């Protein structure tokens, strides 16, 4: 790994460790290997959002050319958010793409991602299905996001109605995640979800 990248990551790792956000439990950072090329981040779902109470794990890959190119980050924890792919976890955030600046650090990036959870950008979506729901049926979006937070990120709010619908599909032999995706996509209408799953 290029000297400059390793040097920066080491320093940034320390910066995150010393930060008040880590002390407050808002963010976390861990090394995955010894070469400083791969890290694992964690952000806490911000309060007053459907993600509150959840912990979201991120995969962080540091390119050879860091900090001249941004780190590659995706959500490992499944999340229902207009700017994050519900399938791959890919993130649509300008600072991770063309708005990257060399002075940004892992800490600022993690905080930006946390901010993205508070303020979605439905007009610049990564996941069109989620963005459509966010715009057309905010109430349902909110509940779906909370449900996903509960199931995948350890959030507190269990939504009985949704769980029952997923269970119905499970009983039909459908994979649990597939069932949840189908139901979320079709605004929790069991019939349409079933139709899509078995078509």
């Amino acid at each position, binding site marked *: 790994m290029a000297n*400059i990248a390793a*040097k*920066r990551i080491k*320093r940034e790792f320390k910066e995150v460790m010393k930060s008040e956000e880590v002390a407050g439990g808002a963010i976390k950072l861990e090394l995955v290997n010894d070469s400083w090329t791969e890290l694992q981040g964690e952000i806490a779902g911000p309060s007053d959002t459907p993600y509150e109470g959840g912990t979201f794990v991120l995969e962080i890959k540091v390119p050879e050319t860091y*900090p*001249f190119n941004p780190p590659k980050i995706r959500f490992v924890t499944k999340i229902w958010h207009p700017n994050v792919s519900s399938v791959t976890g890919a993130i649509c955030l300008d600072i991770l793409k063309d*708005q990257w*600046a*060399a*002075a940004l650090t892992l800490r600022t990036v993690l905080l930006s991602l946390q901010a993205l959870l508070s303020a979605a950008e439905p007009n610049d979506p990564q996941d069109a299905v989620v963005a459509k729901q966010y715009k057309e049926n905010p109430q349902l979006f909110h509940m779906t996001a909370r449900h996903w937070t509960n199931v995948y990120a350890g959030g507190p709010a269990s939504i009985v109605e949704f769980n029952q619908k997923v269970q119905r599909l499970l009983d039909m032999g459908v994979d649990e995640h597939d069932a949840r995706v189908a139901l979320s996509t079709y605004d929790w209408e069991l019939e349409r979800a079933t139709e899509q799953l078995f078509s």
Partner: protein
Amino acid sequence: MGFEIKRFQGDVDEELICPICSGVLEDPLQAPACEHAFCRVCITEWISRQPTCPVDRQAVTACQLRPVPRILRNLLSRLCTSCDNSPHGCNAVLKLDSLASHLVECEFNPKRPMPCEAGCGLVIPKDELAEHNCVRELRALITSQQGKLTDYQQELAEQRLVINEHKRELALLKEFMRAMRVSNPTMRALADQMERDEVVRWAGSLARARVTRWGGMISTPDDVLQVMMIKRSLSESGCPPHIIDDLMENCHERRWPPGLSSLETRQNNRRLYEKYVCKRVPGKQAVLVLQCDNTHVDEHMMVEPGLVMIFAHGIE
């Protein structure tokens, strides 16, 4: 790229850190409007990818970058750092501005050039000294020199060919000029000039001679024996053909100038001999006193195109 922050004694102020490499600023430059400072190497690399300030994304181009203010440079130069060679045992602690001069002479530099003491005389980096093998190194050197030698020889042969070609052309041109000089006064002047230049060039190629015994001068040499030998030697030394016959004539006192023409005048003018600029006739006990070398000598001691003096001995 900046200096590793761990190398510095005490805390380094955040303002002296490059936001790109997170090291201590090295040869820093700043953006014009926002005045954010970066290492020259870091910011140049960044701007080649994206023409913005890496901190606040204001538009910046490479030519807008400015040196940082003196105060910042001073603060940097006062920082105390360990030597680059501290892993190799150097314990020096230096002000940042004297680091460069220290590195040049740091004894712990593993790449410091050292002369081999085993006899080959090569200068090699210190860390390669242990692995160093004089024979192998010299052998490699010989191989490379031989390669060069072959190249040069080939080039030389080619150049010779070209020179011969030029000589032939030149000879043709001279012939041409000689043929023309009769009818054209400009051509005559040119040809005369060329002939004079030729003599000067030839004179310049001959070694200086010193006459230790002017008394050994043979003023009436034997035409066949002595003069023909001199002629051959002159011709081999590159004497221009148009003066060689005149020079041969001037071997004998009958053609010598008034100041030399008899034993009596020669004895009177003996002190003037030391003024002559003499040139060696290669391999012979004889000197050339050419007119072009001796413009400072009185007229009664000189003739065109010059004198040839043959001696019994005493030429150095």
